[in-house]
């Protein structure tokens, strides 16, 4: 589904990604872990198409398309979803309008008719109930005045409505209490199926207790230093990131 080969990128003149290789197949859940400043969030933003992040080398194939040739909105319509580490507040733009516009943009790109307003409301209410969100969110501005946990739940709500092929969730677990973490994890797990893939970018192993990954990668200095199964995450939790670096030197 996603094939990243030797990807390098630069932000504000500084090299952040230094040759990433990663292959993700349909049905898989990958966790990308690493210390602060290792390039995890940059990788997520580059894949989503942020323009001020400059790709300096390598290639990315997504569902047989050259991902890097697509604009951010085209990537989204093709089935890529980025769950933001810091979801943006947009006062004055209604939460539901945004979602409806997003869903219709995707449908239009797929040659499908626009969603019926009544059906859409029913769909979103059902998903909100699943995410244990109050219906008052319907009338509010995008993330406007939401708590950290509410914003993250809203990201997952958007993901459930848009049903992406590939979801990249950037530190969706940060700032969540244990109840919110369970709800968010329930949302992510509900999307798992053989046709989709999920990338979890996270600092902590805690999230992986709720969303079990098939593969774990350790990112440091803009490179993937080590890959393994979920036991790698447990080992990291126990021994720290320095252990990975030390084990490579040895």
């Amino acid at each position, binding site marked *: 589904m996603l094939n990243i080969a030797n990807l390098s990128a630069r932000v504000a003149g500084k090299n952040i990604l230094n040759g990433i290789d990663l292959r993700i197949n349909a049905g898989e859940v990958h966790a990308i872990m690493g210390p602060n400043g290792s390039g995890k969030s940059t990788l997520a933003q580059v894949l989503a198409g942020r323009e001020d992040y400059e790709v300096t080398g390598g290639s990315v194939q997504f569902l047989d398309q050259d991902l890097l040739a697509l604009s951010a909105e085209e990537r989204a319509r093709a089935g890529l979803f980025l769950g933001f580490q810091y979801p*943006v507040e947009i006062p004055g733009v209604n939460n539901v309008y945004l979602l409806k516009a997003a869903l219709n943009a995707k449908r239009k790109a797929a040659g499908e008719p626009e969603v019926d307003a009544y059906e859409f409301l029913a769909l979103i209410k059902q998903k909100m109930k699943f995410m244990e969100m109050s219906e008052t969110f319907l009338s509010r501005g995008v993330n406007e005045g939401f708590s950290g946990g509410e914003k993250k739940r809203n990201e997952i709500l958007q993901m459930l409505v848009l049903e992406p092929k590939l979801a990249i969730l950037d530190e969706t677990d940060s700032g969540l209490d244990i109840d919110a973490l369970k709800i968010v994890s329930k949302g992510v797990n509900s999307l798992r199926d053989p046709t989709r893939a999920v990338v979890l970018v996270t600092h902590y192993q805690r999230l992986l207790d709720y969303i079990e990954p098939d593969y774990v990668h350790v990112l440091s200095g803009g490179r993937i230093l080590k890959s393994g199964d979920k036991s790698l995450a447990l080992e990291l939790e126990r021994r720290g990131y320095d252990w990975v670096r030390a084990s490579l030197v040895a």
Partner: protein
Amino acid sequence: MSAAAYSRLDPPQSPALRSFEAQWQSRTRDSLHAWREPAMQRFLGLGLPTTRDESWRYTNLRRLAAQSFLESSEAAALRAATRATALRDGALRIAIVNGYPQLAGVAAIDGIEISSLRDMARLDPGALGGYLQTTSDTDAQRWALLNTALFVDGLFIKVRSRVTTPLVLVHTTEGAAGTASHPLIIVEASRGSTATIIEQFADTAATSSLCNAVTHLHLDTDAEIEHYRIFATSPDASHIDTLNIRQQARSRCKQFTITQGGGLVRTNLASDLLGEHARLDSFALLVGHGARHVDCHNVARHAVPHTQSRQTARSIASGTSRVIFNSKVVVESGASHSESRQSSRGLLLSPEAEIDTRPQLEIHTDEVKCAHGATTGRLDPNMLFYMLSRGIDRATAQSLLVYAFLADVLTDMASAETRADVETGLIAQLPDSQLLQEFR
């Protein structure tokens, strides 16, 4: 005897001034002569404002001054009146063509008395004269002097009780190119009365027109008025609009100035807070578009203690347009415990557009709370990327963000119908407006 029997110091220089003087000279004296004459003298003595005049420093009237203006005719007004616009549900609508109110067939509403200023001038010139601007030491009021000299008709509106039906005044200018009109509206809101008054400047036949309108709003104790002035004319129309507000104790005035059209739009707002606990809330939605020039000039004067004023502006400039928001608060000596807030936010949508914002404070007493803030910037790239990452195309995302920028002022409007009308008009002026319609 002709009205021209007066002396003046300097000969008028510009074609515009010469044409106004010629109109004045061709008039016959009427019952208001004692007010008109000194006003015209003063206007001619001052001449047209230039950028050297403090309150006109951002607005160059050179193009307007080079134009020769024609007197608006009543005949053209009457012809146009036959194609009066449809009534909006639940509102009383009065067409004012070239300053002449079309009162025939206008339904009566309980609590509001409406009469023509021409009738008032005949029956009680002294009462009308009391409202007229005859001298002025401020640049901003200069055009009100010309209005005093040249207005022919207008409306006197007396609000006697709590009126729920909005009153919509639709101003249009009819006639040949270069027609100038000078409408005058006087609103007296009695003690404890309430009303919503919407003045709309709509597009009409006359090209390169000038509308030099003056409105007086007087709010007696405990009165509440919501007033709108909406400029929706074509880019070749010029507006110089003066709004003078006087507020007695505990009165509340909510004022919206919305420029969604017009080529040159200069608005003045002068509010005198004369009674304790009087409160002014003024909102300006200034949309610069194409090559438009919008200059909004507000002064709130706190004359007594415990008065409040709030001035809020949202400016958007695209193309090569220029938008100016100049707000001033004066707290006079003795007006302690007064509160004022000035907030201005600007959004630049093109590199050639310009927004100037200037909050001013003049405080002559202690113990006041006066706050002001002003920011101008471009669309937030983080907001834009967030929307793009959800698959929304760039044009729609930008339009949504522009709309969102204005939305918080719209929510202050009490009347849902008015808000819907204003939204429709504003959205039509924004880039990619057709995309926005579906998000209403």
